[in-house]
């Protein structure tokens, strides 16, 4: 409570201390030898924070829930198996806002970590489908621009990367599809349109 409390008491009357952000856009797997297709993603981020008196940046602690669907294909020599992944991400992070031009256009960056719960389906024509469930730690980074339409609403665009640093794990779905180099260092990228409510 120390961090939140300090931000709260420092600038309580100056503005909003919370935001709830909805984001959506295309997503794609990163760092895999197989052919990556285009999927989709969406999510919600809740932030709490504020600005220390006398400073410019605005800091938030964030919690996020995101869903995505990713698609890729294995190599032709093993039947071009299709891999469909459905992921749920739960994460915690920190976000900072900096003004870019005037009070309305702001840059923001976010770093965090969390768990990715994934259900992957590996399918080849004629063969039984394999369903692989995984839970992995991942870190993520996001950067974007936001235009504040009103005090209570912003719209923006962002790029979001996530990767799984645990190199001991093996990506079983990619392995089953024929990606012999499959490992847990792969991740995913997202391009997002954001709508943010400030309160």
């Amino acid at each position, binding site marked *: 409570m120390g961090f939140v409390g300090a931000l709260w008491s420092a600038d309580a009357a100056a503005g909003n201390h919370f935001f709830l952000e909805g984001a959506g856009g295309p997503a794609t797997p990163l760092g895999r030898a197989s052919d990556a297709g285009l999927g989709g993603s969406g999510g919600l981020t*809740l932030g709490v924070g504020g600005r220390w008196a006398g400073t410019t940046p605005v800091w938030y602690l964030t919690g996020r829930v995101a869903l995505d669907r990713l698609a890729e294909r294995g190599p032709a020599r093993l039947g071009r*198996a299709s891999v469909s992944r459905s992921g749920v991400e739960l994460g915690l992070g920190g976000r900072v806002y900096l003004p870019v031009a005037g009070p309305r256009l702001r840059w923001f960056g976010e770093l965090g970590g969390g768990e990715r719960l994934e259900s992957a389906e590996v399918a080849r024509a004629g063969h039984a489908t394999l369903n692989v*469930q995984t839970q992995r730690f991942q870190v993520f980074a996001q950067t974007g621009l936001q235009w504040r339409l009103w005090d209570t609403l912003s719209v923006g665009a962002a790029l979001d990367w996530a990767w799984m640093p645990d190199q001991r794990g093996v990506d079983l779905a990619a392995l089953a599809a024929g990606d012999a180099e499959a490992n847990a260092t792969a991740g995913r990228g997202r391009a997002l349109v954001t709508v943010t409510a400030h309160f």
Partner: protein
Amino acid sequence: MRPFRALSVMGVLSALVAFAPLAAHAWQGGASGEIVWASSEARGALVSAVFVGQVDATRLRLVVTLDLPTGSGDGVLTLDLPEGFARGRTVALPAPGARVHYSEYAADGRVVFESTRAAGTARALVDAAGMSLSLDLAVSDAAAQWRRVRGGDVGLPTDPDDPDAIAAARARAPYVLAAQDEPSGDSGCGGDDDELWRDDARSDASGYAPDQTTGSGCGPSEPSTASSSETDTLGDGADTASGCEGDDVSADETGDDGCGDSCEGDGLAEASSSARVRAHHAWVGRCVAWLPWVLAFTAVRLMRRAARRGAR
């Protein structure tokens, strides 16, 4: 809602979110190593294979990708077997509820061989350490071409990168496949060593015709020219070769005639999904599952305080 009640609800919801996917299956794992492969055109050979398997409440599913010798394309074998197969039974194929599909592909993805007509035996045993698997399958197509895929008592550890999991699997299966490992000579059974795999490869060299009709439970017949001194790790008489205790597991009500080569430690153990979650993952998972709820709870409290200040 009182805070402690709210937290209780949050705890239950968080636990469900964090662990529901893990509860959905009993075991899954993968490993790579070598397997004996032979065809109607080619002599038997050890080829690189990648196993990825999953056992859930009702079925065992396994995908084996084979890096076949140059000129043969690459192969994919999928097994879709009823859950009973994961309890140590050696079962003859074809069998009701069992589905085998084998394909070979050219480099451009064309299917050059495909079959769902399989004969042979399969046995799997799943526990917290992983899965041990015995396969001896022959598949044939309408043109009387055939392929044979054989893997002895292969251990697939829950985590192929975890030395403890590998050691545990090795205590039960003579060949434990870990990522990029060669089949190991470490064995819980006397008489099993790497040389047996070479023997298998040699014995296949003399040719083989799949037996699609007998359904005897002992799989394809061995090549007639195979030396009697060579040890059969997969088919009839394997038990006498390996001399393992606990072979009674495979003699079950399915009518199996005891072809499996069970090893010490074969027992019907419950699979443990939690074993595959490393300790730090579980800890991080709990924190991450809880903290968003705590954050939301804090936010609500702060908003109420702000509202009270505004009212004053």
